[in-house]
């Protein structure tokens, strides 16, 4: 059983015009097995929340705390956070030229578990995970994210999620740029990870479409760097019908 607690989180980012406050007091708690959808209009700070939890150096935490099972996440380096069980599925994963997917995945698995995985078992796990995500076996010979289509990039992120077996995963707009078939495949992957490892999920999205395939337990609406409203899955349905206008008017 794991618990990620985000308390009163204030985050700013440095811009050419000086520091800009993006998150203004976010409170969220995600436990194992739970799925939390964070929804909101562009610029509301959803991605900033994702990157702040993962530890991207661009974001400065000005107040508040992040705890994973009571341990202070803000004191950990990026790789320490990953090894502690946090995972961020990136919206724009970067290319790593000359590094094959196969080499990358094995290196990451070794780093996360502290020892190289047993070869036979690893090859089997990789094969199964790739088959489940409808990825060709020659995919592992390609260089990480080089020349990947949008759909391939997202499937590769979810492949890592399934293989690295984190405790809490943040999915940053994993649904963006996917056609409905790819969306279904990716969602199945997330649901498998939930079923197999009791994963806690923080699912960041602009649209309600993905929530038809990944059932949220809680929905949080982000506006201007804060949670403006939260509720159960019914809140997503209401957003589907009404959009974000109601919140934007209120905050204006």
């Amino acid at each position, binding site marked *: 059983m794991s618990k990620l607690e985000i308390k009163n989180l204030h985050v700013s980012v440095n811009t050419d015009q000086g520091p800009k406050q993006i998150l203004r007091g976010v409170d969220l708690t995600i436990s194992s097995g739970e799925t939390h959808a964070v929804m909101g209009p562009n610029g509301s700070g959803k991605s900033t929340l994702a990157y702040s939890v993962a530890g991207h*150096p661009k974001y400065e935490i000005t107040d508040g705390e992040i705890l994973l099972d009571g341990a202070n996440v803000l004191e950990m380096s*990026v*790789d320490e956070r*990953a090894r502690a069980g946090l995972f961020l599925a990136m919206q724009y994963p970067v290319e*790593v030229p000359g*590094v094959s997917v196969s080499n990358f995945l094995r290196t*990451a698995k070794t*780093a996360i578990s502290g020892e190289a995985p047993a070869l036979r078992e690893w090859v089997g796990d990789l094969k199964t995970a790739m088959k489940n995500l409808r990825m060709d076996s020659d995919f592992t010979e390609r260089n990480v994210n080089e020349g990947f289509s949008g759909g391939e990039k997202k499937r590769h992120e979810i492949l890592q999620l399934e293989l*690295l077996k984190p405790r809490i995963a943040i999915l940053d707009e994993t649904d963006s740029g996917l056609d409905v078939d790819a969306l279904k495949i990716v969602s199945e992957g997330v649901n498998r990870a939930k079923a197999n490892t009791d994963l806690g999920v923080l699912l960041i999205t602009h649209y309600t479409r993905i929530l038809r395939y990944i059932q949220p337990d809680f929905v949080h609406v982000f506006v201007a760097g804060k949670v403006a409203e939260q509720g159960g899955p019914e809140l997503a349905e209401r957003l589907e019908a009404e959009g974000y206008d109601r919140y934007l008017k209120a905050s204006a």
Partner: protein
Amino acid sequence: MAQHGIKEHSHGAGVPIQTRNERPRSTSIEDFAEVSKLQEIWRYLPIDKLKGLTQSVIGELTEDSVEIKLAEGVTANWVETTKAKVGSAGLPEDRIAAIAWTNASKTLVIDVPKELEQSQPSFVVIKPNSDAATAAHILINVGTHAKTTIVLDHTGLGVLGENVEIVLGDESTLNFVTIQDWDKGSTHVSTQFAKLGRNSNLRHTVVSLGGDLVRVTPAVELSSPGAEINMYGVYLADSSNYFEHRPYVDHIAENCKSNVAYKGALQGVGAHTVWVGDVLIRETAVGTDSYELNRNLLLTAGARADSVPNLEIETGKIEGAGHASASGRFDDEQLFYLQARGLNETEAKKLVVRGFLSEIIQKIEIDEIEQRLIGAIELELEKVGV
């Protein structure tokens, strides 16, 4: 476009040499001006690190400081330079090469007999174990239709002025690798010449890993039709290294191909690499296909990579001619992505550097050299964490 040979003595009036072809060629030291940063060919070089190599009289590499391990059928003999066919592949274009030429009374002649196909590599390991300036001359003859691999490996401590000549017979193939893996305190100026026979194929790879000053200038003459040269380079420089590589391809005959690709990674304050790639396509070189590339990855602040591609084309009747040069910093987003997958900074850099250099490393096709290079990358990047 860089100018060549500014104020070079043979153009006494100070007229800059406008084409690579106009550089003087001679084995006489007196035909060249003293080494000076005012000349383009020395402009980047830390001249104080040349040690004794600029003196007119220097010692000579002894036979017992060269270990030779040859594949069956390949022969090596020390021959008096006056009796060896030196100059077959080219003549010095600078003073240090002329000094080395003049001071090497013996030449190590390596012969690959015609029609010999030998997949086992031959190794020539040079270990002077001295910081006295010495001269060396090596001549490699590859016979018609022969095919093999030769590795020239420089290790230990040394201050070496070296001329290497490679002559490829018609239809022959050579995979040649020169490794500069010197200890601290070493200086190495290696002038290499290659002359390719009709339809012959040379793969020339430069691997520079260690040495206070390493300068390798491989010049290739494509004077017979249908010849193909691939020039590769891979280097790993830290604060203690200055590496300079100046590949030159001279397209003279018709339908020849050249491809030059050098990649290097640098780290640490004062790490400095220089790459000047010259390609000359003469009026006679109809049907030439040519490309040159240099890429540098700067892992830390304070490292410097100079990269200058020069392309001179005197005919329009060619298949292609291109060049690319780029030097970039280690990407913060790449680092973040890999760290977010559990790799610490050192592991992430190792992975990225290996990936960056892999394109060239794979071209060497000699397993033990590839492994040694990968080991060197591991070792070098352990230092970064400090």
